């Protein structure tokens, strides 16, 4: 029999972090945006162990402060895109600038420098990824998805989807379901 599951990455990551942090035996607080603050400084050995522990779960310890900021930007974008409660009503540039307390221009340049892609592109990528997930969940129509993700129309979503992936949303859905059929 087949069971279908849905992942909430945030919860999973948090859980893993918690577990591993317990093992460390050090006092810690989990701030937002993947930031953990320890009461004391960790020895490099402990840090390495911790890094290895987390590494098994694909969780990386980000060293570089630029990378850190970029990660924060990414997380903020994620939050914006996955905005379940529709709290965020402002333009993405405004939102990011406010949230991360830097000018949007600075953030934008930094992001491109580190990731070789623009924030806009990343936002689109995230949105399309979320769209893919929602399409596969099969509980919402494309129009509803477009609305949820703040597209001006379903055509706009379709166009962007096609521009990004080269496939129409329906083709995407069809292919994934055919893949599933093949695996059975």
């Amino acid at each position, binding site marked *: 029999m087949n069971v279908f599951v849905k992942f909430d990455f945030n919860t999973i990551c948090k859980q893993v972090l918690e577990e591993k942090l317990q093992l460390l035996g050090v006092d810690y607080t989990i701030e937002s945006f993947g930031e953990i603050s320890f009461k004391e400084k960790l020895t490099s050995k402990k840090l390495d162990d911790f890094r290895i522990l987390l590494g098994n779960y694909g969780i990386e310890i980000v060293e570089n402060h630029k990378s850190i900021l970029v990660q924060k930007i990414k997380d903020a974008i994620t939050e914006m895109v996955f905005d379940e409660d529709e709290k965020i009503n402002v333009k993405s540039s405004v939102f990011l600038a406010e949230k991360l307390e830097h000018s949007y221009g600075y953030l934008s340049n930094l992001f491109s420098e580190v990731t070789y892609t623009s924030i806009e592109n990343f936002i689109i990528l995230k949105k399309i990824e979320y769209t893919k997930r929602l399409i596969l969940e099969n509980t919402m129509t494309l129009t509803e998805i477009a609305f949820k993700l703040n597209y001006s129309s379903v055509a706009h979503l*379709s*166009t962007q989807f*096609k521009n990004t992936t080269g496939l*129409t949303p*329906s*083709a995407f859905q069809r292919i994934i379901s055919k893949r599933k059929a093949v695996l059975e």
Partner: protein
Amino acid sequence: MTLKSIYNSSWFLKSVFALSIFIILFVSGVTYKHMKNLSYSANQVEQTYKVSVELEQIISYLKDTETGQRGFIITQDSIYLEPYLKGRERINNTLAQLRELTKNNEDQRVNLRELNTLIEERLSNFSRTYANLKNSSPNNPRFDAIFLEGKNKMDEIRVRVNTMIALENRRLEERKEAYKKDLKFTPMFLFGLTLLTLILITISYTKIQADIDKLKDANAKLEIFKASANQSEIISKHGNWQWIVEDKEFIFSDNLYRLLGEEPQSFDSTIDNFMQFVHPEDLEKLSIQVEKMMEDQELPFINYRIIRKNGEIRFFKARGKKVNIGDFEKRVLGTTHDITDEVENLLALEEQNFELEQNNKELSAFNYVASHDLQEPLRKIQTFISRLEDKEASKFSDSGKLYLKRISNASSRMRLLIDDLLQFSRTNKSDQVFETINLNDLMENATQDLAEIIQEKNATITLKNLPIANVIPFQIQQLFINLLSNSLKYSKKEVKPLVHVACDVVRASEEEVIKKTKSDFYYKIIFTDNGIGFEQEYAEKIFMLFNRLHNRESYSGTGIGLSICKKIVENHKGFIFANGKPNTGASFTIYLPKK
């Protein structure tokens, strides 16, 4: 029950016949009775006559006696007494006769006895008179008294005789009356009966004649039918046969023999004789089936071969069914059909079909491979040209760059052509799968595909009513893409292209343009645009392969797009028609069968 139904019932003749017999018997009975009456009457007359005669005879004898007596009285010659002497005897005879004649009549017998007495008295008178005269003359005193007595007796006798005669006559009269009465009704009655009989006989005759006519008619029709059946057997190469269940005998029709290549009825119609002709490979199969038929009285369809005496092999198909007709014994009626021609035709057709299919496959493969394999070198050419243009442009002179450009253009053109040809050959592939799909989705995909050019030309595409239908999805999508792309390509400069797609369900019979339809209902999808249109006279030409209405400089194109559309529509057993009005626009109407 109407008169007609009585007339036509089978009891009619029987009852008429019975009635006639009865009437005849009745009439003969009546006639017999009358005959008897007649002879009885005749007898009566005779009897009366005889009685009269006898009585007269008695009177006569008595008179003779009287005369004799008178003679004797006058002459005293005993010669005149002869009658008196003979008279007694004669009178007795006569009386005896009379007794015989009147033995049935009581009154007359009484009369007769009286008469007898009177005659006795008269005769005794005679004797006394004779005795009286013997010794004396008639003038004696006793003589007158005796003579008078004698006369009175004679008178009494006459009276009695007259009474008797009168009685007889009265009886005769009575009989005559009775006879007359009888006679009054009898003739009418008999005449009536005879008339009735005549009428009945006439009716029966007409009925019998009518029945005979009907029978003759039916017979004639039967003969015609038989002849026609025989004829049809010959024309359609059938042979009919019968299996009479009880007798276990076969009857073969004439044509069955001919099918075997033999003269009609040239051998006995037995199953063994027939089996002689059956192909050895089919012999067992047929024998088993025939045996089954003899049990079940039914022969289901069976195919087998026979070999004629001249070696020719023919294919037969036989079938038999039980039949009960009227009073005939149970039979199995069967028919055997020589299907050799059909079999041979079918084989020939199959062969032809196979060849055509092979041919088609080859052509398709050729087309596909050609288009496909031509792409590679072309792509290389184009890529290397682009490399030249990028990397080595500076090393080229102006004319060199121009030539490069021209080469590039020519290759692009070739590219387009090959792409379209490839597309065309793809729509030819016979192994296409039909799916039930929402045409709106396909339309959406098509518009997505053309999103760039739609945006560039600021075009508006409106849809209405596209249904869910059973189609080959990719092909219909291609169809939509080709039509939309055409509308966009051939749009008026400076005018925003408007394309409207509408769909309706229509009845084939109500659409004049559709002939030879296979389905009753069709989806009618119309693409309408406000582009440059075309002359209606080219409406059919534009679907032809490589046909273009414009040169390459005005509008790009390969002339294959609409042929592909037509092919796709034909793959779906549908139709496509074009309508154009120069400078107004064009519309393309597609009919897809609705299943």
